């Protein structure tokens, strides 16, 4: 049963279009990586409904602190594609001058935190941002995302505890794709457990209780459901923190350095019912927003558009090497000035 949402059908359709775009872009960026245009790439497949649902739920005043696998969320929030792709392809137009790996966005003026590689390394900063929001009486809540593996880290515990103690206006959003590279999240997810161990024996959404607040588990394959629950959580967060565990599945490799065949058999192939593209299409159809003809034409459009985009960005020039010594400090130390002579 599909409840009504508080946004228009048009918004939902646009969101669906972004979801399809993410799917196509992902494949083409993965391809660009195989061809050597990207030394490293983090695939998105399986996460699209989560991304689009989150992006749709975030409103003007909210703050988003993403992790490294959140491309679609940023796009759905309305960040210009040019900004996002300049970052992914580390071009000279990247606002961070190509200093970080793909998908490590930092868009302060859009209220987006700076993605960091060490898993969960952003979570305590997100609590500080939430505190600053309340201190400055800003509208909006903070939402931060992370993987299932991230719940094993020191940072998760400490950030959750700080959020509980200060009763911060924030949503902790766990994108549970059931794997942290090769290590499965839970004991029960697949049959490989005689050979190895898992991330945790506790249900992730219930971990919130250890910190005195509530957690929920949701379906992460349907972007409308993700939207609805996330929006509600952002509203509720004004009264204190909320944890969401969204169940999905990492359909591709962890990164371009990874070969998932070494440790699992893929239980959610593309096109199957748990593929977020298929699950989201079903919801949209049930809501009478989408039909097969539209699906096809959107696919065609996005296929073409994303090919053009990737072709363009993969060939953009890289940042000038002389920029690399800029902006380490407010005022340049003498030894950095000396080292300018070393960059030739």
């Amino acid at each position, binding site marked *: 049963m599909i409840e009504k949402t508080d946004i228009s059908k048009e918004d939902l359709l646009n969101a669906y279009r972004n979801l399809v775009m993410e799917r196509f872009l992902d494949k083409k960026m993965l391809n660009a990586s195989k061809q050597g245009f990207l030394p490293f790439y983090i695939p998105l497949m399986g996460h699209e409904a989560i991304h689009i649902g989150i992006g749709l739920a975030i409103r003007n005043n909210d703050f988003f602190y993403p992790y490294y696998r959140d491309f679609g969320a940023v796009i759905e929030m309305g960040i210009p594609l040019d900004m996002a792709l300049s970052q992914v392809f580390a071009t000279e137009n990247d606002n961070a001058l190509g200093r970080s790996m793909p998908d490590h966005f*930092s868009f302060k003026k859009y209220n987006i935190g700076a993605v960091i590689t060490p898993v969960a390394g952003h979570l*305590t900063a997100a609590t500080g941002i*939430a505190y600053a929001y309340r*201190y400055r009486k800003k509208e909006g809540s903070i939402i931060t995302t992370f993987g299932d593996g991230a719940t094993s880290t020191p940072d998760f515990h400490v950030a959750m505890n700080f959020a509980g103690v200060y009763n911060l206006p924030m949503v902790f959003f766990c994108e549970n794709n059931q794997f942290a590279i090769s290590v499965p999240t839970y004991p029960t997810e697949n049959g490989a457990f005689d050979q190895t161990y898992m991330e945790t024996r506790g249900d992730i959404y219930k971990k919130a209780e250890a910190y005195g607040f509530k957690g929920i588990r949701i379906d992460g394959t349907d972007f409308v459901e993700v939207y609805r629950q996330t929006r509600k959580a952002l509203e509720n967060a004004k009264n204190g923190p909320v944890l969401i565990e969204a169940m999905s599945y990492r359909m591709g490799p962890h990164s371009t350095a990874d070969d998932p065949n070494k440790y699992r058999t893929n239980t959610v192939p593309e096109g199957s019912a748990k593929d977020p593209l298929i699950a989201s299409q079903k919801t949209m159809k049930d809501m009478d927003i989408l039909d097969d003809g539209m699906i096809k034409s959107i696919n065609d459009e996005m296929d073409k558009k994303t090919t053009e985009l990737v072709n363009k960005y993969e060939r953009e020039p890289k940042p000038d090497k002389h920029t690399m010594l800029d902006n380490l400090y*407010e005022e340049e130390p003498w030894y950095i000035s000396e080292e300018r002579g070393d960059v030739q």
Partner: protein
Amino acid sequence: MTMVKALNSALDNAMERDDSVILLGEDVGTDGGVFRVTDGLLNKYGKERVMDTPLAELGIIGFGIGMAMEGLKAIPEIQFQDFLYTGMDQIINQMAKLRYRTNGDYTVPMVLRTPYAGGVHGGPYHSQSGEAYFTHTQGLTVVTPSTPYDAKGLLLSSIELDDPVIFLEPKRSYFIKGEVPEDYYKIDLRKANVLKEGDDLTVITYGPSVPLVQNTVKKNNVNAEIIDLRTLNPFDINTILTSVKKTGRVLIVHEAPKMFGVGAELAATIAEKAIDYLSAPILRVTGLDIPVPFALEDYYVPNERRIMEAVNKLLNYQ
């Protein structure tokens, strides 16, 4: 007033002027901090600005970084520098790199205060001098005062900086006294302080070792130039080279262990840029290369005897 009071006065001045300045840390609120540096500030500014935190340095630092990203000025206190390693990832990977990796989209104007070095006979975990970990971390400014006056002025300058500062407070000097204005004033973070001019040798030192060096030089009537670095990174190379070129003999004194310590970089820089001016080896008198032993701390730290042995070796060197 004491250095503790001077630091308290700096925090008070800064909080009074600017409501974006926020203190946080274990026991900084009701208790006023284990060394009482934040005493009275909770009453004056309330718990929104003087925040007791759960026992997690990782959180204290990360929370402060987040506040800085939203335009507040967090001043976390870490109870002892020894405990700061539990938040080291946030320091090295987030605090120090954020400006650089975002090309200034975000900056981290934040001052992480922590007492360091010995003086309270606290054994291996209340006595560490870990400054070299921070000076080697690109993006950090590392500051350490040696007097109450410097403590206040350097802290206020650090608070104004748009970069993260590791502000190392020599706890063995917390209760030394000196003249300190009640009013707001600053000290240039990029300038070393020539405490005494002299011709025969240059002694470079900082923080907890400054009084020891001053007393030793005075008592033994050494014609030494004494440089208090104040900022360890980026240090003031001009003041150092000018002095070394004048005296030709260099002694470095710090309480941290010698090997791969701060003194090594000072020596290496001099050996690169002023070798022709040297008339003797570059010597270091430092803490021993062991953890600080509880019962024997007094034998661990540099002392007058060891300094004078080195001074005499340098002065007699042909």
